[in-house]
């Protein structure tokens, strides 16, 4: 029988060719995950859930600070200490309706001690002694001591009360001369005192006002924290740049002993502000720095007058090259504190306020920029005899005068007031000044405000960063960024826990660290969206290559499979025929 090789075959077709051609696509499929993994970009794992949780937690419950207040009354006949405490709390909530907002003491407790000489009462949460020794001492020494001495006396005495830390106290002593005025003084630390003949109701109002308006709010009138009074840079630093400007060196040249100013005046201030910002100081003396001419001569007052509406144009930035710092980093905040010495043509130069009075400080600030003080030389007459310009040193008395003004300006730039008297609803209060520039309770207020600001800023920055990172799936995220974000979240949690515990300065420094790390990671130079293309882009780039390469891989398989099928049909046909 003849076999037609085209239609029949006697042996079963082999599968070897098919298997051989299958090996190549099979190895492709095998190696594909390896290929995919090798082009994967490195993205350090960012804690997106953690960031989201942090932001939502800050939104739902604002940061709570723990504050404790204690009021001590000497020489009063209140009936029940708990009623007194409640009355004070009620008055405080009336004075401060937004107490649950960030920066205020969220939940505060008031303890009361009432020592009426014969008996002594106190609320359960009070840790003070009863009878109240401090009050007796104050009453005894009373008006004979100066404010500073009373302050120190109370500090020594109240410091022994348990707490020591952040307990705000007011000591009210009823007694003294009938004619003497009631004197209310807030000390440098965390206590205040009221001496004089005070009625009960007035005493309660005054105490509530000191607690709510002075200790909690720091005398600010507004509700929310203004961002223009937070001049701390993104890296947690402030650079104070002091400049002495000689407008016309041909008239006179002044120099100052800045090292002395730095050591005596500035170093204590810088140390006390340490939790809030890392402050560095630099100084320079500039010459030929005329200001833009806007003053007129007033015969009556005998001086050149510049009114406050010309103040925005006072700083002549074309001639005043103030920003010459080489040490300040790109993200530090610089505050310019300028002492301007006018030329003989404009000497003496005074500032006129809108109400017509002359300014007694001759200074002004611009928020987030700095401050200027105009200092007029002793005699405005040019020394015509000497041909060369004589260099004068500014005397120490003058330095003392304008350093007080500069300190006031620094306080204004941080959102506090520069004066020492507070006029409240229930009366006036004298506020003691501190040689460190800021009293303890003012530092507490600043710390609280900065903690709030820093934490909210940190949450917003981390939120922006996580949205940005998720919207660019092919962007490389280095380990450095991941690490900074983690540490920032940790620091923020630490700040919040410290705030609830009442440790303000540790809370402020960790919140500052949290914010600066969040800013560092957001502003990392490698996050440039223009460098990272989308999946579509890479798909379009690679498709032509892979399509071409696939052709010699897939087609042989198909053709071999077709051949096998044909041969198999031939075999089947032969078998059928053979049967």
């Amino acid at each position, binding site marked *: 029988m003849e076999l037609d090789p085209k239609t029949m075959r006697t042996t079963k077709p082999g599968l070897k060719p098919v298997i051989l051609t299958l090996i190549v696509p099979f190895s492709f499929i095998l*190696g594909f995950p390896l290929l995919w993994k090798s082009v994967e970009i490195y993205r350090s794992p960012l804690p997106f859930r953690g960031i989201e949780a942090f932001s939502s937690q800050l*939104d739902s419950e604002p940061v709570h600070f723990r504050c404790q207040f204690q009021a001590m009354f000497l020489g009063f006949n209140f009936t029940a200490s708990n009623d007194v405490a409640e009355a004070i709390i009620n008055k405080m909530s009336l004075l401060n309706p937004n107490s649950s907002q960030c920066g205020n003491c969220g939940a505060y407790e008031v303890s009361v001690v009432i020592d009426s000489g014969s008996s002594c009462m106190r609320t359960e949460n009070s840790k003070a002694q009863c009878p109240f020794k401090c009050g007796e001492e104050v009453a005894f020494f009373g008006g004979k001591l100066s404010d500073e001495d009373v302050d120190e006396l109370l500090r020594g005495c109240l410091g022994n009360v348990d707490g020591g830390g952040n307990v705000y106290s007011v000591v009210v002593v009823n007694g003294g001369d009938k004619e003497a005025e009631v004197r209310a003084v807030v000390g440098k630390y965390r206590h205040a005192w009221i001496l004089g003949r005070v009625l009960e109701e007035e005493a309660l109002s005054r105490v509530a006002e000191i607690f709510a308006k002075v200790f909690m709010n720091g005398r600010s009138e507004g509700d929310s924290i203004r961002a223009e009074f937070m001049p701390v840079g993104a890296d947690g630093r402030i650079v104070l740049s002091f400049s002495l400007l000689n407008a016309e060196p041909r008239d006179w040249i002044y120099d100052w002993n800045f090292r002395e100013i730095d050591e*005596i005046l500035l170093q204590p201030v810088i140390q*006390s502000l340490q939790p809030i910002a890392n402050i560095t100081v630099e100084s320079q003396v500039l010459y030929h720095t005329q200001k833009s001419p806007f003053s007129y001569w007033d015969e009556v007052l005998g001086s050149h007058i510049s009114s406050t509406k010309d103040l925005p*144009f006072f700083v002549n930035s074309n001639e005043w090259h103030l920003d010459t710092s080489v040490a300040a980093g790109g993200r530090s905040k610089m505050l310019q504190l300028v002492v301007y010495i006018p030329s003989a043509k404009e000497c003496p130069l005074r500032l006129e306020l809108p109400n017509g009075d002359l300014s007694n400080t001759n200074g002004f600030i611009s928020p987030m920029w700095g401050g200027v003080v105009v200092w007029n030389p002793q005699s405005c007459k040019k020394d015509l005899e000497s041909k060369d310009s004589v260099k004068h040193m500014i005397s120490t008395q003058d330095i003392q005068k304008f350093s007080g003004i500069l300190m006031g300006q620094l306080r204004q730039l941080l959102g506090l007031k520069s004066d020492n008297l507070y006029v409240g609803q229930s009366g006036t209060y004298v506020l003691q000044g501190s040689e460190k520039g800021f009293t303890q309770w003012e530092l507490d207020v600043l710390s609280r405000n900065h903690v709030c600001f820093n934490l909210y800023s940190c949450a917003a920055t981390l939120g922006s960063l996580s949205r940005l990172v998720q919207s660019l799936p092919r962007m490389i995220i280095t380990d450095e960024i991941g690490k900074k974000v983690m540490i920032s979240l940790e620091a923020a949690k630490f700040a919040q826990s410290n705030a609830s515990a009442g440790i303000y*300065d540790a809370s402020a420094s960790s919140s500052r660290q949290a914010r600066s790390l969040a800013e560092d990671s957001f502003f990392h*130079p490698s996050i440039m969206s223009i460098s990272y293309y989308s999946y579509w882009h890479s798909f379009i780039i690679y498709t032509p290559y892979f399509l071409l390469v696939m052709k010699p891989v897939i087609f042989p398989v198909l053709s071999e499979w077709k051949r096998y099928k044909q041969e198999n049909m031939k075999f089947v046909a032969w078998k059928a025929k053979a049967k």
Partner: protein
Amino acid sequence: MEFCFLRILKLTMKVLVMLLLFLGNIKNSTAYFSSSSEATMHTNNWAVLVCTSRFWFNYRHMANTLSLYRTVKRLGIPDERIILMLADDMACNARNKYPAQVFNNENHRLNLYGDNVEVDYRGYEVTVENFLRVLTGRHETAVPRSKRLLSDEGSHILLYMTGHGGDEFLKFQDSEELQSHDLADAVKQMKEKGRFKELLIMVDTCQASTLFSQLQSPGVLAIGSSMKGENSYSHHLDSDVGVSVVDRFTFYTLAFFERLNIYDNASLSSLFNSYNPNLLMSTAYYRRDLYQRHLEEVPVTNFFGSVMETIHTDSAYTSLTNKNFGGAKTKTFLGQSFSSSDINSVRNSDDEDQFNNLTAEEDQHDEAGQCIFCAMDSGHLWSFILGNVITHESVDFFVCYGLVLMLPLLVFSTWLSL
């Protein structure tokens, strides 16, 4: 294959989780201090002036930018708040008949390159990347302060760009392009980080208004010299210098500002209405849907002039007058900050350790390498390899695994073909 399936499953789960997180993140967390721009005080003005063209025949773009620089300085913005980017040097160009002088009018009355020009980015430093870095603030650490846009929440920024442009792009240096979506993205990031309170974008190129078509951030006002499909033309040719010296849009803008001084109160709407399409030979189109205020109420000095919010200092801080200067040094009280720095440093090291524990995955692979394979049988071998491939990123291991995998394949195929 099992591992393939597992891998795909893991991938899909990751994608789903990311999607959920992304959707969750869309809701903006409201800041405590109000993020709306009405609440913050307007404290300073910044100007970013960009000329993107090089070569001598693009003299007019340089003159445009320098004219605006001069205007803005005259109205009060200081050099430290101006970022000037010039892509080429016309003043000292070899073809400039008037060395060190740049004019914007054929009457040569005004030398724009006068006494006090401070160029921050010059020549080849003017790139799209540097421009976006200036806007977003993402510089390398060594970049000096004068090259950074140090604006804050209270800043109004004027962004002026001129050069050659087209539909949704602006050409930089004749070699790359800034796309409108890149600009919109940069502005969005600036707004999120609070780098401006209000932004005015002025573009003088062909089809200028397409460049800001993708903007979405609030507080942005934009005006372009021409609409889509229109060209922007130069104003006149200076036959002495040999090239056109100014563009029409900028020429009429300057004409408006030459009439002003720092005290003037002209509003933005008067500026925008002063452009006459017949004189410009194109339609100056502005976009105000993202800007909340009424243009009649906004003075031009809000963007073009200097502003300085001033507060008078009422009194000196009195306790410091008791300080003894020049005499015996007062004992300084170190204060209570001792504990915080200690706590901080301790905490820092704790954080580091915790962090290391959190992210360092257990390093199970053996550095000794290939001998491991010999010791295991195939099933364990496979899962071991896969386990390491999925967790470990080392390139060496890919090469190692890949090569080793090819070997049995090679053997198998050779055997088959024999």
